[in-house]
């Protein structure tokens, strides 16, 4: 491990560690009641004792997030490809995509809960927030192939299909992956927000539902434990997508270029 790597990992770890120690120390010194602010050690022990309930909730939230992300990928890539074929289609549908994006999901959730069963409504909310960054990025990517290469393909009489498969699709990949990294985080946020909006109406028992429930019961340590799990899930999704992006682009894209000194 080089010195830079060491600093890269050690410094944030140290800051985090010191923060946690300070938190623990202050809570103990001032004897802060657990229903106001639980100490980190209590949060961890709650996480362990409540693991059966919390892990089940984690799984519910994660599966909603992943399903939403999956549908968003298929939908957005499909629509972006359609946009790439015809400017008219893009003109016709893009405003709706934008409208969906700019309307806050918290405001749409209650409406969706009227029309759809809570499980489906939560999924649709998570899908809606994950959809747009993927659509916008993929659309941009598909239209940003090097124009000289487009000329070259035309000169060699490439078919539309060849141009699409060998040029436009690979050109769009970095854009798509950038969108995916944004959407991965947003899908989780969408799922959580929708679950909170669904509140007691939601019979599903995702992490957000656990937070709301624990709040009612003044079980603050469990609230924190659920919060911790959401953060860890978000970070994990981000790391996995970053790794995927790195793996796919490592040979060629500037964003993955190491400093070759």
């Amino acid at each position, binding site marked *: 491990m080089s010195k830079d790597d060491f600093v890269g990992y050690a410094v944030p770890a140290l800051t985090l560690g010191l923060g946690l120690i300070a938190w623990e120390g202050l809570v103990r010194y001032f004897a802060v009641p657990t229903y106001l602010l639980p100490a980190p050690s209590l949060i961890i022990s709650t996480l362990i004792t409540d693991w059966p309930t919390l892990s089940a909730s984690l799984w519910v939230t994660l599966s909603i997030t992943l399903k939403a992300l999956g549908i968003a990928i298929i939908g957005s890539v499909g629509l972006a490809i359609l946009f790439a074929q015809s400017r008219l289609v893009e003109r016709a549908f893009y405003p709706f995509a934008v409208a969906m994006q700019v309307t806050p999901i918290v405001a749409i959730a209650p409406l969706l809960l009227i029309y759809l069963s809570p499980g489906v409504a939560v999924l649709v909310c998570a899908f809606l927030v994950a959809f747009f960054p993927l659509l916008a990025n993929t659309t941009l990517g598909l239209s940003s192939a090097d124009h000289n290469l487009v*000329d070259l393909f035309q*000169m060699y*009489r490439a078919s539309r299909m060849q141009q699409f498969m060998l*040029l436009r699709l690979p050109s769009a990949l970095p854009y798509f992956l950038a969108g995916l990294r944004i959407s991965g985080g947003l899908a989780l946020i969408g799922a959580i927000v929708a679950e909170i909006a669904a509140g007691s109406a939601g019979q599903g028992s995702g992490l957000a539902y656990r937070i709301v429930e624990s709040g009612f019961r003044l079980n603050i340590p469990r609230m924190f434990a659920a919060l911790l799990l959401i953060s860890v899930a978000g970070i994990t999704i981000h790391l996995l997508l970053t790794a995927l992006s790195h793996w796919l682009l490592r*040979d*060629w*894209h500037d964003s993955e270029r190491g400093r070759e000194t």
Partner: protein
Amino acid sequence: MNKMATLTTTKAAAIPVAAPPLVTLRGVHKVFANNVTALEGLDLEIRAGEFLSLLGPSGCGKSTVLRLLSGLTGPTRGEINWVADCPELGFVFQEPTLTPWNDVFANVWLPLRLAGVSKEKARPRVEEALEQVGLAGFAKAYPRQLSGGMKMRVSIARALVTRPTVLLMDEPFAALDEITRLKLNDDLAALRSSLGATVVFVTHSVFESVYLSDRIVVMAARPGRAVAEIVVEAPTQSRQEGFRLCKAYADTCVQTSEALHVAMGDRSPKMLKGGMA
């Protein structure tokens, strides 16, 4: 076709280098959608097997000539007549224009791939092309691992892989440093004499054009047109480093520079012809 034949005879008598024409441009106008006139009444004849440079300031439409020849765009007025029906073209851009997600092999394979030639069938041709540009053994490298000069060599290999009869090169070395550029000029000169293809080479470097060409057509800008023609007398086979030290090279450079100067000074083509010939 009849018209072509008459043009050939009249032209062949007028110009010392006797080779059959490959393509003839007659009164070619090109006006872009934004009403910019790129070319106005361009007459140009390209002969089979020659190395022709189009030299001129930016905006003289020299790149447009290549786009017209490659069929990427059509003339607004005038005609472009090819002797052969469907000549095999190779194109080299100013930028290497490689696909970064493909390795060198796949980049060179591309023109054959688009024509439906499988990877295995294309392998000997790709390897031959890489050898011609001095990149044997680099098939598995990715473009970003290569220097600017090497990327340009890949780009040339890609143009050669279809064994083109006409090689169109659009300022291919303009973005390279001087040393790399001289080396690539030498290699192109050597490659060219072994290939026997017709080359149309767009450049704004006098030295490059004199070093490489059999014939230089000087163009003027706004509107783009051909204003002078210079025939480089040295035999093509002797175009190695030594040629740059010859008096003939220096003289032709001076002559060409003057022609270019006149072209940029926007004097009438007639005055120039009188002065130069």
